[in-house]
């Protein structure tokens, strides 16, 4: 349970009043809430409800499964040679080495522990691209966490505000709603939508920063003048 889980039930009634007031009476013409209402196309209550029901748990589960698959790639058994001391044997070794290196830097012949490999080198392998895909899912989950924290802080601010007291004042006839109530609803809504707008911008940044990292990895076959030939001498040493 995070901060948004704790504060959202407390703020739910206030947000419902804010949304109802904005929908029925609008906001003062020059109020800053109009900018975020147009930009986001949603009312404050719906924005909060969205982040409250989305916490990235499914993304972390998916990322864990991809990391597990990447681990399987690193232990794949591709025999590095077949003990043929000939052109055919060298050709096999070259192909096997290239296939193993494409799969995983750890699986490639002569690879070390793999812990010293940079992220760039790792992402040139299939295992590395799987990890990058898992990283992306976790980055989106982290984005949800930060967004939820931001929404929780905004809600905590408005719950303690004078505008909240105004909104909680005894019910008033809809036709004679006080101008102060409309302004209070707009102020509360603007503060909440501002947090939602920041979350949206961060989501765009995340998407922009991730471009290219999940692209299809193209296999480069070793450049050999010949593959297997049976007219060469093959020495089966064992």
């Amino acid at each position: 349970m995070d901060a948004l889980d704790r504060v959202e039930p407390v703020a739910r009634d206030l947000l419902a009043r804010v949304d109802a007031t904005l929908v029925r009476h609008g906001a003062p013409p020059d109020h800053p809430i109009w900018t975020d209402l147009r930009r986001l196309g949603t009312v404050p209550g719906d924005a909060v409800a969205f982040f409250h029901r989305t916490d990235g748990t499914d993304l972390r589960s998916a990322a864990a499964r991809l990391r597990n698959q990447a681990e399987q790639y690193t232990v794949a058994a591709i025999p590095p040679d077949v003990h043929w001391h000939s052109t055919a044997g060298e050709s096999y070794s070259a192909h096997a080495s290239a296939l193993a290196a494409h799969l995983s830097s750890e699986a490639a012949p002569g690879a070390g522990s793999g812990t010293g490999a940079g992220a760039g080198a790792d992402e040139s392998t299939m295992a590395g691209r799987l990890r990058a895909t898992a990283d992306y899912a976790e980055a989106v989950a982290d984005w949800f966490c930060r967004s939820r924290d931001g929404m929780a802080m905004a809600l905590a601010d408005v719950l303690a505000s004078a505008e909240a007291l105004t909104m909680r004042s005894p019910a008033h006839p809809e036709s004679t709603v006080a101008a102060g109530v409309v302004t209070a609803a707009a102020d509360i809504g603007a503060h909440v939508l501002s947090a939602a707008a920041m979350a949206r911008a961060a989501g765009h940044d995340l998407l922009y920063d991730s471009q290219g990292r999940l692209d299809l990895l193209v296999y480069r076959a070793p450049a050999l003048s010949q593959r297997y030939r049976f007219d060469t001498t093959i020495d089966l040493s064992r």
Partner: protein
Amino acid sequence: MSANLTAAVAALRDAGAELTEASARMAGHDPGPAGFGGDGPGALGEVGRDLYRYWQLGLDARAREASAHGARLDDLAGTLSAAGSGYASAEDSARQRQPEE
């Protein structure tokens, strides 16, 4: 075919089959658009759908990589097996041409 070669062919075929299965499983790792916030309201939902589309591209690429590499390993196993069989046939023919002592 020698035991060494038979084992190598089997190992390549197993690794290829594992990758083919990994490719088939890839779509099962997709939590769907709602996991990325694609069901959100207004512009928040748009960001979620954009994030989801990029994830889908990545996951599809991972599936294609696994499928293609599984086929490459299987192809290498087939080539190796054919090479081993060719060598064994040549060896048998040579042995049959040897005069009995």
